[in-house]
């Protein structure tokens, strides 16, 4: 999302561009927040998977 860089005051200025830009900034924050949530979820899932792998390996070791 590099639109904000192309949409600065050098490109257009006025009330409407300001509204567009601020809405875009809001959207970008929402997207970044959603992306952070997804990363957090992914990180948690990976941790759980690693823990499950470790438990499984320990049980195999005990059985052996």
């Amino acid at each position: 999302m590099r639109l904000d860089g192309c949409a600065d005051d050098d490109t257009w200025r006025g009330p409407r561009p300001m509204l567009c830009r601020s809405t875009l900034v809001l959207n970008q924050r929402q997207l970044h927040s959603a992306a952070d949530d997804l990363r957090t979820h992914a990180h948690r899932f990976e941790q759980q998977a690693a823990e499950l792998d470790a438990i499984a390996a320990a049980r195999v070791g005990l059985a052996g």
Partner: protein
Amino acid sequence: MDTGYDPHRLRELSHRTIDAIEGLRSIRSDDPAAAEALRAIRLTRRNLEDLWMPAILQIIRSDAMVSWTEARLDHPMGWWTGGRPLSAAPVPGLLRTPDVCQWTALSALTDDDLIGYVAWADRLPPNAIDLDVLARELALRVAGDPGFADRLIALASTTTLVGNLTGRAAFPATFLAGVVTAMMWPHGPQSTVDLDGYAASLSTALSGLLAEPAACLDLLLDPAVLYGIASWERLDTDIVTEFVLAGLYDAVEADPGRLADGYRVLATLTTIANGPLDHGITPGMAVGVAGSMAGYIPTLALVLGFETTIRSVVTVDGAEIDLGTYDELVGLFGVVLREPTAQAAIGPAMSAYTTQTVTDLGAGVGTLTGVEHVADFADLLVDATRTEGATLMAEAVAEEGRRRRLGGALGFGLSTVAGAFGGGPAVRSVVATAVRVGTEFVADVEPDTMPEGLFGPTTHNLITMTAVSVVVGDARVRRELGMESISPRQLDEMARRLEEIDDETDLDARVTKVRSFERWITAEVPLLDAHLNSIRKMPGMDALKE
């Protein structure tokens, strides 16, 4: 507050925004964990589409800060109109930046701007716009808004773009019919319209209706449309042929209740052919009418009146349709049969009618009424070609090779036609085949004439040979006629000779074989000979031999 913009950077911004919209649109996931992220993506995309892009386009369209336009009040039809009527819509600024004409830009336009865009888009350089995208956007709005459709139809006669675009997306038949009607209005002698381009555009709109035979018939009922199709030779001949076949034949085949409308079209065409177009009609119209005759001869042949003052009036479902006097019908078929391909197309229709009539009469063919109607219609065709004959013969010399091929196209087709006569579509396919054959041979040779009187002797022979084939193929008919004594060997011989005649493509050789067969019948099967003699004495048969 300070207000301003940089046109170049703004155009770059519009391109990047379109890329961003497309990129956001392509992101998909079925994972429930991604639901919130997808909602944020959807919000962002809608913001860009609904708020951001319209604002950018609005600024791009405005030329207030970069140029000005001279009023040119003393020349209201200035260079940019090309002599066309001034459009009610203003010239949209978008035209000056065709590079932003992507789907997003079009879908963001108001109806007014889009109409204005269509009015001027054909002034742009080739490939400046994506016509498929434009056509799809227009088709969407036409389907959802009759008012928009009417405005676009009103533009059809001032820009070829509307007709051309009908071939690039699925438009409703009512809209296509409106475009055809609007474009059929003639342009005056002062017009600067590119006539070839206009005809191609109109042909495209006509071709869009081929899958809607009822709509084709509706249009043919409009005298202005009928006259246009019958007279304007720049229209695509193949498309006109298919259009007329669809309206006059397919529509009636699908809904027999529309036969009266078909006759109304023929009545108007008779008037035209005996008036402003007595010098000839377009090849497409001629072939279309000739090919459609398979659906009309059985009822038309019954009402032919040969007296000058008697009018041929056909009654269909209680409606009386006046087709004109015999001479006027001769005039109609005269201009139709001037077209060589039309001559080839009407042959199978005539053969089909003859075969069915003789087959239906069975044993009663020599005594019951029926054959005279076949003879009457064949007479009409003979008179039509004879009337045209003097002019035609003066224009060109008949070519022997082509004459033979034409004879082949007319043909006996005893087995083909008899087998095909189970239903209308089959006959239609026979007609279509003949039209194709006719088109192919016409493409090979210079236009000349059909030998005068070919329809008469051919039909005469067709009647007698069909009668023989009915006797050979139907034991019940032989019993009724008291011909049980015909031996299996004689039946086999007659079947063999009929097949031989059927296979013969050379007209003269076929006539020779028919004569030889008739002599054989006289000598070997006197009962059948007597039967054929009774047929030859039916009203009208003598005239066919002239």
